[in-house]
C-alpha cells in the first residue's frame, strides 16, 4: 500500500510530502471504538502525525491517492464483489463555537469484482520434445 497526497484549492493541486498512515494516538483510538490501525489494512491518517491534517483551510480539501493490491488468499476468488468505506473526523467552528470530533458523512466505494488473472503462457521446446522428427 502506498499513497500520494495533495492539498487542492483554487490555486491548484500541491503535493503534500510524507503523509503517513501511522495511526492515531491511544486516546483518539480509545474514544473511537471500532477504529483499528495497523498500517496495512486499517489505515488511519491523523493530524497527530501529519501537520497537513492539523488545519485544512476554508476552500480547500485533501486528496489521497491510495494504491493497493489484492492479496492472493483463498477468499479472493474471481467473481467476489467488494467495496471499502472511508470515514473522517474533524473539529470545526460553528456559530463561534469550536465543536470537536465531528464525523463527516462517510463514503463507500462502488462495488468492484475480482477478475481472473489474464495469464499468458509461452511454451518452448525442441522438436524431439514434441515428438516431431527433425
Amino acid at each position: 500500500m502506498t499513497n500520494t497526497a495533495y492539498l487542492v484549492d483554487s490555486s491548484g493541486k500541491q503535493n503534500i510530502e510524507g503523509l503517513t498512515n501511522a495511526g492515531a494516538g491511544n486516546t483518539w483510538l480509545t474514544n473511537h471504538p471500532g477504529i483499528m490501525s495497523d498500517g496495512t489494512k486499517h489505515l488511519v491518517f491523523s493530524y497527530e502525525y501529519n501537520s497537513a491534517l492539523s488545519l485544512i483551510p476554508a476552500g480547500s480539501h485533501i486528496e489521497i491517492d491510495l494504491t493497493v493490491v489484492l492479496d492472493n488468499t483463498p477468499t479472493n476468488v474471481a467473481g467476489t464483489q467488494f467495496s471499502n468505506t472511508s470515514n473522517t473526523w474533524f473539529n470545526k467552528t460553528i456559530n463561534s463555537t469550536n465543536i470537536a470530533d465531528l464525523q463527516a458523512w462517510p463514503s463507500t466505494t462502488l462495488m468492484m469484482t475480482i477478475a481472473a488473472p489474464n495469464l499468458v503462457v509461452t511454451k518452448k521446446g525442441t522438436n524431439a520434445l514434441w515428438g516431431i522428427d527433425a
Partner: protein
Amino acid sequence: MPVDAVLKKNPPAQTTATIGVPFTYTITAPLLGQLDSTGTFQYIANADSNDISNVVITDDLTTSVRSLAM
C-alpha cells in the same frame, strides 16, 4: 443543511481488480453535501467554506460484502 463529507472513489471506469495488480483509490475530504428529497446523499461543493482542524481520515480495507484481504 449541508454537512462535511468524505468521498472515496474507485479508479475511473474500473469495475474489476485482479490479484497482484495494483489499483488506486482516491479519498477526498472535506467536501460538502446534503440529503436530497429521496434521502440520497448528494455532494454539492468541493470544499468547506470554513476551516476544519484536527482531521483524522480512516480507511478499512478489509470491509467488503464478502471476505477480502488486501
